[in-house]
C-alpha cells in the first residue's frame, strides 16, 4: 500500500514538474547580472531598467520566435565572487538561452568564463576590460573597449583640442587602467606629453592633495578616468581650487548625476561615450524618450548599452530561428543592427565596431560635441 502511495505521489510530482516545464517553455529566458545593491547600485538600476525597457518593447512587438522574452535579473553587487554562482544558476537552474552582463568589468570577466565553458552566449553591455571577450567565442561586447576609448580620448585631447601637456588621473581598477593604457599607447602620435599620472581608489571622494600637485604641474588638459561619484567631486574640487584646465573624461561620467554633483564646475567637461543625446537617429531618439518615461530620470550610457545588448540578443535569436546556443552565437557574430548606441557590428573577437561619441556639458545637460569615426584608430584587437 505504502509503495503504491509513493509511486502515485511520484507520478503526480512528475506530471506537475512536466507541466511546469511546458509552461516555462512558453518564454525565452535571458539572464542578466547587475549590481542592484552595493556601491554600484545606481548603474545596476540604470542597466536593468534599460534591459527591461528593451524586453518590454520586443514583447509588445510580438516577442521572439513567437514567444515572449523573460528577463531574469540577479544582483552581483559588482563583485566577481558573486557573479560566478549567478552565472551557474542562470545556466543550470534557469536554463537561459543567453546571458547579458549589466555589470562592471570584474564580475563580467568571471561570469564570461562560466558562460563560455557551458557553451551559452554571453554579451557584455558596458564592461570594458579587454580580457572579457578573450574568454572565448561565446562572449561578445556591445560597449566600447577601454583601450579603444582611451585612444579616442587621446585623439580628442591632442588633435581635436590641440592640448599637448597632459596630466592623467587614473582610477585604480580595470576600468581606469585600461583607459589610461589606451590613452598612453597612442599619446605620442598626437604630440601629447604626459607630464604626470596620479592614481586614486574607487572609494576616494576627496582629491585635495592630487589637485594641489596638478596645480603645480600646470598642464594644458587633464584626462581623468572614473565614475560620476569620483569625478563629480573631483571636477567640483578642481574648479574650487582655481584650476580651470579642461577636463576630459569618459563614459564613467555619463549621466545626469555627474552634473548634479559637480554643479556649475561641470560646464565644458568633455567625455567620450556611446550615447549621443542630440542624435537624430530614430532608435536613439525613441530610446531616450521611452527610457525617461519608464524610469523617471534621463537616459544614460549604461541604460542605453543594456538596451542595445538585449536588442542584439533578440535579433540574433530571431535570425537564428532557434534557441540553439551555437546558432545564436553564429547569428550574433553576423549582427548588423541599428540600436540606441549606434550601428552594432562585431569583429572576430566579439568586439563591437562603432564610432565614439564626444559629449560636452552645456547649461547643465549633456550635449553633442563631436563624433570620432576614425576606423583605423578605433579598430578593436582581433585576438
Amino acid at each position: 500500500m505504502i509503495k503504491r502511495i509513493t509511486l502515485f505521489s511520484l507520478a503526480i510530482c512528475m506530471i506537475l514538474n512536466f507541466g511546469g516545464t511546458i509552461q516555462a517553455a512558453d518564454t525565452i529566458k535571458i539572464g542578466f547580472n547587475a549590481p542592484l545593491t552595493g556601491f554600484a547600485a545606481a548603474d545596476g538600476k540604470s542597466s536593468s531598467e534599460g534591459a527591461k525597457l528593451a524586453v518590454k518593447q520586443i514583447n509588445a512587438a510580438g516577442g521572439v520566435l513567437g514567444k515572449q522574452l523573460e528577463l531574469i535579473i540577479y544582483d552581483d553587487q559588482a563583485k566577481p565572487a558573486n557573479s560566478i554562482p549567478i552565472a551557474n544558476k542562470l545556466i543550470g537552474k534557469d536554463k537561459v538561452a543567453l546571458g547579458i552582463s549589466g555589470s562592471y568589468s570584474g564580475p563580467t570577466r568571471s561570469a564570461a568564463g562560466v558562460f563560455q565553458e557551458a557553451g551559452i552566449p554571453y554579451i557584455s553591455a558596458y564592461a570594458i576590460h579587454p580580457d572579457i571577450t578573450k574568454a572565448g567565442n561565446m562572449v561578445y561586447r556591445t560597449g566600447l573597449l577601454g583601450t579603444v576609448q582611451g585612444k579616442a580620448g587621446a585623439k580628442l585631447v591632442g588633435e581635436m583640442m590641440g592640448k599637448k601637456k597632459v596630466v592623467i588621473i587614473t582610477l585604480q581598477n580595470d576600468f581606469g587602467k585600461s583607459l589610461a593604457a589606451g590613452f598612453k599607447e597612442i599619446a605620442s602620435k598626437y604630440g601629447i606629453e604626459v607630464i604626470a599620472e596620479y592614481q586614486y581608489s574607487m572609494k576616494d571622494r576627496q582629491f585635495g592633495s592630487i589637485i594641489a600637485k596638478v596645480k603645480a604641474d600646470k598642464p594644458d588638459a587633464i584626462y581623468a578616468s572614473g565614475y560620476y561619484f569620483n569625478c563629480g567631486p573631483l571636477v567640483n574640487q578642481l574648479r574650487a581650487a582655481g584650476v580651470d584646465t579642461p577636463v576630459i573624461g569618459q563614459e564613467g561620467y555619463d549621466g545626469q548625476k555627474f552634473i548634479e554633483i559637480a554643479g556649475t564646475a561641470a560646464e565644458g567637461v568633455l567625455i567620450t561615450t556611446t550615447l549621443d543625446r542630440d542624435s537624430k537617429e530614430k532608435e536613439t531618439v525613441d530610446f531616450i524618450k521611452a527610457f525617461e518615461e519608464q524610469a523617471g530620470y534621463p537616459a544614460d550610457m549604461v541604460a542605453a548599452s543594456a538596451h542595445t545588448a538585449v536588442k542584439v540578443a533578440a535579433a540574433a535569436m530571431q535570425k537564428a530561428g532557434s534557441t540553439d546556443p551555437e546558432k545564436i552565437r553564429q547569428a550574433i557574430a553576423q549582427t548588423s543592427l541599428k540600436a540606441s548606441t549606434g550601428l552594432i557590428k562585431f569583429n572576430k573577437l566579439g568586439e563591437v565596431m562603432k564610432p565614439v561619441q564626444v559629449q560636452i556639458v552645456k547649461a547643465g545637460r549633456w550635449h553633442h560635441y563631436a563624433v570620432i569615426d576614425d576606423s583605423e584608430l578605433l579598430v578593436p584587437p582581433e585576438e
Partner: protein
Amino acid sequence: MLYVELLTQGLIYGCMYAIIAVGLTLVYGLLRILHVAHAGLFTLGAYLGLIVTNATGSLLLALPVSAICVGFVGMAIYRFCYQPILHKPPYVALIASIGLFIAMEEIFRLIFGPYGLTYTNAPLQSLVNILGMSLRMVDIVIVFGSVAMLGVLSWLAQRTRLGIAWRATVDDPQMAESFGVSVQKVRYLNFFIGSALAAVAGIFVSLLSNFAEPTMGGVPSYKALAIIVLGGLGNVTGTLIASVILGVVEAFGTIYVGDYLDRDAIAFACLILVLMIKPQGLFSRK
C-alpha cells in the same frame, strides 16, 4: 608652496577623521566595543543634514537637527543592540555591529535611492584666498569647527560634574557606581555625543564632495578603527593626534607613493608600522 598646500589638505583630512574617530574611541573607552555601525550614523548624519539643508536652505539649522536626531539613534543602537549582549564576549558585539552597519547601508539605499543625493544649492562653497591658496569656506569651517567641537568636549570632560562622572566610569565603572554615578546615564550620554559628532562629520564630508551616498560610511568604518588603534585604544588625545598624522601622511602619500599604494593602503601600512614598533598604539597609557 606645494608642501604648504599638501599640509593644509592633510590638516583638513585629519580634522575630518578626528571628529569621526572620537565618537568611536569614546565608545571603546567605555564599553570595549568596536562600534563599526558608527560609520552608518556618519552616513545618516550626512543624509539628514543634506535633506534639511535642501528643504530649508539653512545649514545652521541642519547641523543641530541632524546631530540631535543621529544622537538619539546612537542611543537607540546602544539600548537595543549593545545593551542586551554586553555580558557576551566582545566579538559578539563586534559582529552585531558589522551586521547593523551593512543593514544600515542597504536601508539608506532603499530609502534615499541608489544614486545618492546632492545639495541643490551647496552652502559654504565660496572661495577664500589664504597664503595664495584657493580654499573653499567649507575647508576652513571643517578645521575650525572640529577644533571648536573637540575643545568643548574636552571642557565638558574636565570641568563639569558630568564629565568627571564620565571619566570616572571609564576608569572604573564599579567604583564610579558605588559613588552614585549612574553608569547607564553615562553610557547613553556617551553614545549621544559620539553619534552627534559623527553626524556633523558626515555633513562636512557631504559638503566637501557635494554628495551623500549610501556607502559613504565604508571608508570611515575601517579607517576610524585604524586611527583609534594608532592612538592607543580608548585614548581621546591619542586619537586626535593619530587622525592628524594620518591625514598628513595620506595627503603626501597619495602624491609620492600613490603609484604603489592607494590611500587606504597607506593608512594601514602606517598602522602596521606603528604596531610593530609600539604594539599598544602611539599614545597608550598602559
